């Protein structure tokens, strides 16, 4: 299973993702430039955080018209997996590969801090190494992370990660950006496309905390 990390002009978490996956035993991994048209050698594509194309127009809005993005639906149809982190999640929503949309944070500000995240599903290839209800710490760093579903009654089953307060409860105070129902990350109905605002790649070693290792290990255990 080869992993590709998409690189757009303005991506700035591509190297963090490379480090996190390599550090956790993934050796078959390489960067993929946004103009790539062929993804068939990969099993997983990471859409990293950053400010693709300056986030001009809207977050992720230019990136989704690049060659690699036009190939992504085919890639998923033929069995590929995609993880969008932060800006990558914004791209997946903008392209409608994931339902819903991301608005500016309710408080209008760029928020960079550690947050508590509760695992809502562990029946996905990305989260099987966690327990349901387990609370992990991950950093967020975004201005546009206020997730809103298109149809609130349809989103329940797609929720994988939720923001909680430091007692583990779904409260307003535990919700950093105003997201509907404290949503921090969702998966599509096929189980192949995961999008999340928190940067698990920044907590995937013994120095910064290994809360995000579970996502990488789950994927390896399920797919290799």
């Amino acid at each position, binding site marked *: 299973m080869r992993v590709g990390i998409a690189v757009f002009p303005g991506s700035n978490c591509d190297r963090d993702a490379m480090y996190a996956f390599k550090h956790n035993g993934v050796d078959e991994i390489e960067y993929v430039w946004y103009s790539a048209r062929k993804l068939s050698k990969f099993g997983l594509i990471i859409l990293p955080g950053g400010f693709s194309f300056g986030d001009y*127009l809207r977050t992720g809005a230019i990136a989704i018209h690049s060659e690699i993005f036009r190939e992504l639906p085919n890639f998923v149809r033929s069995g590929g997996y995609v993880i969008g982190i932060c800006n990558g999640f914004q791209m997946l929503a*903008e392209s409608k590969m994931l339902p819903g949309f991301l*608005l*500016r*944070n309710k408080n*209008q500000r760029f928020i960079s801090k550690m947050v508590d995240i509760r695992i809502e599903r562990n029946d996905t290839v990305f989260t099987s190494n966690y327990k349901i209800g387990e609370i992990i710490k991950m950093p967020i760093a975004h201005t546009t992370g206020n997730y*809103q579903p298109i149809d609130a009654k349809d989103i329940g089953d797609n929720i994988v990660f939720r923001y909680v307060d430091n007692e583990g409860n779904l409260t307003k105070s535990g919700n950093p950006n*105003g997201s509907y129902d404290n949503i921090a990350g969702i998966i599509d109905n096929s189980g192949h496309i995961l999008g999340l605002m928190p940067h698990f790649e920044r907590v995937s070693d013994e120095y910064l905390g290994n809360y995000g290792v579970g996502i990488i290990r789950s994927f390896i255990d399920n797919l290799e």
Partner: protein
Amino acid sequence: MKIKIRVQFKDGVFNPEGDTIKRTLNKLGYKEIRAVSIEKTFVLDVDDAHYDEKRIGTIANDILSNPVIESWEIVK
């Protein structure tokens, strides 16, 4: 020919930016301001010989706006 495309949030989409401006105006004493919304206007300089309103509409709908949350109109 210059074509203007105006893009705005649809009704019901919470716009934190407009809301912050509204609250600030209210705080400064402009209590009559009930809501502030922000629109974007794109100005496209189009080759007259190849102007096609349908193509401009496609640009507005597929690229310049996100139709899930935004509406657009061509302003002449």
